[in-house]
């Protein structure tokens, strides 16, 4: 008897819907075993991870704050990936957006600049993110350079550029040489939604982005083009769709969204520019995009879910002394199961009995 994977005649719509759920189920089962090995009560641990953070307003806010950049970046990435353009450098576009927006904040510091400052920061950050993303897109279209490599390498350029600015020209003169700008003025800060909380306007912007992407993909010709070019390049060519133009467009949009996420993070929860403003949001967003099946609402849920594992992981660390590494293991096996279960969309398990004579008839 042998267990083999057999290709399905057509992709299974049912499995496509339930595979993320199977993946989450398997992840939780694996976590239960892991918690038990660590000598922790699995039920209490799962409660700390998944239930406790959902039961009070404070952690709900924190989940939204954490999910905001992830969702915004992942939406942009999903457009790229749908169009078969592989932007891996959202982290760099995030940083460049943060830098460009901060430029206005730094230059207007201490002046009586008015309410235009924050909107200008947001616009400039989006523009800078888009331009930065266009570098790999144009290299791809004009010279055939791999956008995966070029976009990834530009992450390090952005990182070091930010590093240079906060250590050199933009350093807070009263900051004892520590690499950070001065705190942004109130007009350069993303407003909070709840007094005394941390939920900020960026979360609303992220929701608008999700809605806009849903409309773009579901109701417009451009959205249709994106999906066709990705799913059936030959058909798209026959249909007269310009794949190169779409690479440029999707890269620019995803760069703009990453840049916007960058400045919102800096002008929001952080309040100043410093190295290490992103704990890898640009890369985690890739997981979010795929976990959300490249669907805007799926991404929203996936972003919130991943944020929940961060917040829950921290609470588990406090409440049950579960090491932080377990949270990372958790995210890793989640992605592993998601990808593994996705293969069931195109394949199915089958038991085969190669060596047994199948006898029929009278016996």
């Amino acid at each position: 008897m042998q267990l083999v994977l057999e290709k399905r005649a057509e992709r299974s719509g049912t499995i496509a819907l339930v595979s993320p759920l199977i993946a989450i189920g398997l992840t939780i089962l694996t976590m239960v075993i892991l918690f038990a090995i660590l000598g922790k009560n699995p039920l209490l641990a799962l409660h700390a991870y998944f239930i406790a953070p959902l039961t009070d307003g404070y952690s709900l806010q924190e989940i939204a704050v954490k999910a905001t950049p992830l969702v915004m970046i992942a939406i942009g990435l999903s457009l790229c990936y749908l169009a078969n353009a592989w932007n891996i450098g959202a982290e760099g576009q995030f940083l460049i957006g943060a830098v460009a927006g901060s430029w206005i904040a730094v230059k207007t510091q201490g002046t009586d600049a008015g309410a235009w400052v924050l909107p200008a920061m947001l616009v400039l950050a989006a523009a800078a993110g888009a331009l930065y993303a266009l570098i790999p897109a144009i290299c791809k279209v004009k010279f055939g350079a791999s956008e995966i490599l070029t976009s990834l390498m530009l992450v390090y350029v952005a990182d070091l550029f930010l590093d240079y600015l906060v250590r050199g020209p933009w350093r807070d003169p009263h900051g004892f040489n520590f690499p950070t700008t001065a705190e942004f003025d109130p007009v350069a800060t993303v407003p909070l939604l709840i007094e005394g909380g941390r939920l900020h306007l960026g979360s609303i912007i992220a929701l608008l982005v999700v809605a806009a992407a849903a409309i773009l993909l579901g109701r417009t010709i451009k959205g249709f083009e994106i999906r066709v070019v990705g799913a059936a390049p030959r058909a798209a060519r026959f249909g007269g769709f310009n794949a190169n133009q779409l690479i440029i467009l999707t890269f620019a949009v995803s760069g703009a969204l990453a840049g916007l996420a960058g400045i919102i993070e800096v002008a929001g929860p952080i309040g100043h520019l410093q190295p290490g403003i992103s704990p890898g949001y640009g890369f985690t967003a890739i997981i979010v995009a795929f976990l959300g099946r490249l669907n805007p609402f799926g991404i929203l849920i996936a972003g919130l879910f991943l944020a929940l594992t961060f917040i829950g992981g921290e609470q588990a660390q406090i409440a049950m002394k579960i090491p932080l590494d377990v949270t990372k293991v958790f995210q890793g096996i989640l992605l592993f199961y998601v990808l593994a279960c996705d293969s069931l969309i195109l394949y199915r398990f089958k038991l085969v009995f190669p060596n047994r004579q199948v006898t029929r008839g009278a016996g």
Partner: protein
Amino acid sequence: MRKSLLALAAGLLLAGNVSAASAADKLKVGFIYLGPIGDLGWTYQHDLARQALVKELGEKIETTYLENVPEGPDAERSIEQLVRAGNKLIFTTSFGYMDPTQKVAKKYPNVHFEHATGYKRNPNMSTYSAKWYQGRYIQGLIAAKMSKSGVLGYIGSFPIPEVVSGINATMLAAQTINPNIKVKIIWANTWFDPGKEADAAKALIDQGADVIMQHTDSPAAMQIASERGKLAFGQDSEMIKFGPKTQLTSILDTWGPYYIERVKAELAGTWKSEDTWGGLDSHMFAMAPYTNMPDDVKKMAEDAQAAITAGKLHPFKCPIVGQDGKPVECKGGDHLDDGQILGMNFYVKGIDDKLPGK
């Protein structure tokens, strides 16, 4: 199949220990760590101090820590999580937690905070640090005696005053032994990155340095110096096992007594916001045994340590000449005052390098 799954689940539940001992009457003390507790340097020493605290006052307190908390957007949330979990006294153990700690402190006036190595205080937020430059001075004396090439290698983390004053103290001491001593400085721009630290150590040795000193947290540089047959100083913790024939001494962070004292004050209700900057005399740090050096060098180091502890020797004794050749104003009588050292933003004469950002 279903039955066996149920049995498995039940077994797993029983395996997990249900030891949620009620600790409502215990004082909860929280810690935020920059690195992993296994970094064998900075965070490791803070956690040793926490363990000492538990050993001393374990009956009355319960401690919790969050490790690997980056000095970025997550720090504020992590600190607030500790507050919300009921911690009444919270130690945030890295400079970069300064602003996040202050934000949370303003929000929760009834919780007390202790921030390591910063300069912003509140009625409910203290700061504490150690005069490590005193230890650096002793290291400078030893380094100048032990170096054959006359070139010291120095791995800096960030060009903040704490690190700059360490470099200056080292050089002022070394110049009393060898006026022509040179120092090569590499900024790793990180507190903890064994790979980068090792690369820096290799580069310094390639440039002729034969004594390696570091202001970063891992033992990587010690291991490289050991491989290359050079000498080195440990940092934060005892690193002799990474270089039994290499380590000359190490500045040991000994936070335990301070933590115990502060928690006792909290228990007694006498906690006040304070600024503590302790030196060798107050046991905020200690020197590891002087090893791998001749007896006369060891004697010299011990004498210097005794003199500094007794207040007879000040590493920043005037006159001090800046890198530009101009004398530095002497605000503390016959030595620089604390403010000048805490805000130190210049190199002393003889350092052939440019301070970043200058």
